[in-house]
């Protein structure tokens, strides 16, 4: 039973009307446009930033969709605009050839969902369109003030930079994740510090000289580049409080300390398999005596070879609960109620979110990581934010550190930058 929360009664309007706000209405940023690339990891970063800017109730989400399926899986290196045109041509060639040949099998077409599920039914998310956004910014500038555009991911680079080129007077364009080159195409670039790892001496030793110019980034960070420790996200103190009360019934009665285990999935910079899963379960069983309860969540991308081991070793342990994937996802509840976290090393976002709580975070499998992720792990360890999970910890021990605060810090930088232009954010 969730507690019944009454809505707040209407409060006395004692505030100052908007029109008397400092500097007039056309200098106040009240809305945001988010350009996503369809990946939850990236869009989550944009929305986190929007939230930190206080614009979460007034933002539009656009999406750049790269053609998928069939031949397209081999064409990710193409600029997304060109890729779309090519896809359009290919589609038509295919259609015509099919008509000519009278073939009934249509493997290519059926496997290709078109932009934002366009032909499925309701187009809930708009396809990012430079002209449309530029027009929006220009036409509503007088009435609604400047537009802040937040984009994330490589596929959004060209659109975001075009919007800035066409409407630089009316927009403030923020690009999240390093856009490789020409950083001055954006008003602000927010990127993790470890994206600059290739510029360090240590990294350069690992790469042959002739390759270096091909590796992002090419130059050290400029003034309008905000360096973060981890990824941006939506977790802040207020969201944790809300999650805590929403999940109160589920978690308040659990034996403490509650240890939360978040398992990601192997990727190119951090490869692992059943061996790491076994190491994780062994260590968990080792520290189980010091845990009140353990809750495990697996990502939807976690490979079966990993999850099999987890279920086999811990599935019937009375202290351990493994989330079976059924909604609602308890992730936020875990962040709010967990007393300590164990996270696999692969995921920058999972680790960043756990580390923004200020609660103990243990990382498992950091030695499987290389290149940028290894650098990320190293920096966190050196700052005392995470510790390696060895299986000899006392999970009831509580230690703390300055919580990762990248999203709020990035928002503060944006506020300052806006202020320098004479703009302000709606408070």
């Amino acid at each position, binding site marked *: 039973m969730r507690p019944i929360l009454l809505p707040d009664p209407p409060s006395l309007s004692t505030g100052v009307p908007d029109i008397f706000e400092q500097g007039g209405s056309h200098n106040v940023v009240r809305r945001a446009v988010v350009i996503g690339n369809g990946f939850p990891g990236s869009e989550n970063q944009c929305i986190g930033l929007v939230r930190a800017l206080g614009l979460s109730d007034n933002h539009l989400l656009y999406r750049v969709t790269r053609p998928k399926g069939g031949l397209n899986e081999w064409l990710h290196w193409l600029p997304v605009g060109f890729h779309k045109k090519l896809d359009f041509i290919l589609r038509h060639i295919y259609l015509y050839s099919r008509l000519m040949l009278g073939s009934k099998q249509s493997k290519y077409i059926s496997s290709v969902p078109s932009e934002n599920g366009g032909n499925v039914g309701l187009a809930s998310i708009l396809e990012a369109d430079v002209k449309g956004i530029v027009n929006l910014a220009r036409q509503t500038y007088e009435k609604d003030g400047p537009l802040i555009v937040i984009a994330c991911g490589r596929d959004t680079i060209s659109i975001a930079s075009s919007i800035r080129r066409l409407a630089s007077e009316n927009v403030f364009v923020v690009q999240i994740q390093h856009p490789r080159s020409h950083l001055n195409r954006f008003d602000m670039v927010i990127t993790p510090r470890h994206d600059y790892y290739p510029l360090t001496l240590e990294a350069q030793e690992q790469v042959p000289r002739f390759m270096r110019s091909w590796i992002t980034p090419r130059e050290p960070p400029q003034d309008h580049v905000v360096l973060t420790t981890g990824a941006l996200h939506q977790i802040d103190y207020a969201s944790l409080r809300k999650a805590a009360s929403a999940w109160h019934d589920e978690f308040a009665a659990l034996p403490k300390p509650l240890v939360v285990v978040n398992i990601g999935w192997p990727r190119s910079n951090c490869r692992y398999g059943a061996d790491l899963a076994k190491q994780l379960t062994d260590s968990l069983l080792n520290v189980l005596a010091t845990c009140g309860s353990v809750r495990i969540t697996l990502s939807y991308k976690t490979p079966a070879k990993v999850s099999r081991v987890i279920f086999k070793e811990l599935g019937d342990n009375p202290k351990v609960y493994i989330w079976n994937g059924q909604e609602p996802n308890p992730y936020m509840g875990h962040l709010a109620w967990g007393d300590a976290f164990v996270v696999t090393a692969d995921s920058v976002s999972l680790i960043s979110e756990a580390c923004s709580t200020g609660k103990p975070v243990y990382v498992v499998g950091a030695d499987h990581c290389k290149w940028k992720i290894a650098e990320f792990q190293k920096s966190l360890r050196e700052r005392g934010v995470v510790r390696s999970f060895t299986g000899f910890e006392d999970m009831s021990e509580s*230690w*703390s*550190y300055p919580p990762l605060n990248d999203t709020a810090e990035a928002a503060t930088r944006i506020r300052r930058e806006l202020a320098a232009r004479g703009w302000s954010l709606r408070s």
Partner: protein
Amino acid sequence: SVDDLPPSSASAVTPLGSSVIPIVNKLQDIFAQLGSQSTIALPQVAVVGSQSSGKSSVLEALVGRDFLPRGNDICTRRPLRLQLVQTKPSSDGGSDEEWGEFLHHDPVRRIYDFSEIRREIEAETNRVSGENKGVSDIPIGLKIFSPNVLDISLVDLPGITKVPVGDQPSDIEARIRTMILTYIKEPSCLILAVSPANTDLANSDALQIAGNADPDGHRTIGVITKLDIMDRGTDARNHLLGKTIPLRLGYVGVVNRSQEDILMNRSIKDALVAEEKFFRSRPVYSGLTDRLGVPQLAKKLNQVLVQHIKALLPSLKSRINNALFATAKEYESYGDITESRGGQGALLLSFITKYCEAYSSTLEGKSKEMSTSELSGGARILYIFQSVFVKSLEEVDPCEDLTADDIRTAIQNATGPRSALFVPDVPFEVLVRRQISRLLDPSLQCARFIFDELVKISHQCMMKELQRFPVLQKRMDEVIGNFLREGLEPSQAMIRDLIEMEMDYINTSHPNFIGGTKAVEQAMQTVKSSRIPHPVARPRDTVEPERTASSGSQIKTRSFLGRQANGIITDQAVPTAADAERPAPAGSTSWSGFSSIFRGSDGQAAAKNNLLNKPFSETTQEVYQNLSTIYLKEPPTILKSSETHSEQESVEIEITKLLLKSYYDIVRKNVEDLVPKAIMHFLVNYTKRELHNVFIEKLYRENLIEELLKEPDELAIKRKRTQETLRILQQANRTLDELPLEAESVERGYKIGSEAKHEELPGTRRSRTETNGNGRLHM
């Protein structure tokens, strides 16, 4: 008069004089004596916030006096445990004096000058954490007594700082956060999260860290400071209403004195007036008066703390009870200590008596600590007798290492140079004695087992109680060990005697003995039945008619008629023996003589046999050489009886075996019966009876008592510590008993409380209705 009082209590005209806070304060003092050993977490309020968020100012406003170190950078560098104790004002017959007491002062002294309190806090901080901004987690204890404060216990914690300065380590923020967490993680701790209004509440360090310990905010009170220095056009209304971040206990907004106010030496009283004025001048804060201002904060804090304590008391009580029980038990285990000579003597005597009682009751199976998982004490002794001793004797077959050849050789040897007319007695007696002698070793072993068992039992007795006195334990072990050994000797001697008695006289008239006649009949039958399938042996019977079964049986029957009258046997046997030209087999012959008959019965005997035979064969050789030229083949030095059995011989062998078995059974039964009796009499029961006397004789000596009852030093220390803990817990328990726990007894409890603790709780009666009217603050 109300005007004289600082507004903090003047506006809080209804002090919620519940008796619970003083009681918790008392408990805190009580448990402070235990130091870090205390595992019982008491309800308290911890003040957390980032550096310069105004924590200390809030505290000072609550007390109404300046007494905390202040400045621009880190001021609170050690946790400050602050107890506010309300005293009786002069209007109520008390005094208006206000003073502070530090818990680290011994003896406690009252400090009336609050600037001295501040200096003392600074000095004490510097003493532990160094002069240069270092931070330590060892708390300072301070009590403030004043008629103008409400009863509240608070812990002022160092502020969360971002940038290390001075001697602070680079991970200062992590350290302070960890320190704060250790305090607020306890479910019994209320959290006062102080956040300044001029920063983003969603990023408030105070609320963030409070959320780590208290996710759903059911024990966090938000305090928003610096409402007066918010940006123009902004207000904290939504924050105070909990719309930004909900907290179950809500928020209180305050306006602290600014640094300027402090420099201008403006009093807290003036500041509170200014605060009230500020809120009244802002229409945005109208309607929020119940969550604005320091007086409201004090009131709310007091109410919440009272509720919080009430909610925690039952579990606190049970925890104290558990600790009390455990400590009492531990203390008991260390026993009493007596200093006087007479008392020590009595103690030793009672120890000895108890030890002997424990020893006998373990033996008799009356011990209180009886095990259900394994045999112990007397039951083990029975097991050794029955399942070890008797069982192994039963399993022994008297004929197992006795071949037919052995018996035949013995019979032939017994009849001498002639062939036997009757089956002779001698082989039977020799063989049966040999079997009886085999019983000696297991019997002695059995006694040894019982001895070991008794030693074990003696070690188990009073083990716990004796741990106190290692010297006594060692001496008692020595005494009982020697005493048991003394008991072992007579029991073993008796066992030897018993076996010798059995060997010395073979009582063939024993009613259970099979007797000659019956043995012959049975043997005949057995042999006959076994011969039928072997017709090959028949022709031999006819070759030697004198040894036919019929004649043989006739003779043998006579030879074993002794069952009716012994004399007959001797009469009829004597001629036979005389014919044989050797001493009559009357049993008077020495043992060695008899055993020498047996070839290979043991090495010595065989050697003797050879020695006896040698001179005889040499002399005969010489005689023959002189008289005749016919040479006989020399007989081999070792002669064996002919290898083939005649039927007669088989019968003889069978008879001997039957007799042997029958008689051995009788003896074995006697031994099985008598050996345990001997052991019980000479060893077990004897020690049980005499142990007490022996102890008295050996240990209860005037000059020994002191040495015996010497305790190890660590034990004395432990006892003392446990005694102290016990005393404190009893005190705590009594303190808690003064408190009503049930909701329905609250009313009565207040009455009792106000009467019993009248001088400590002014205004209790006045507040009764008020407390009940505030039921909405139930957590």
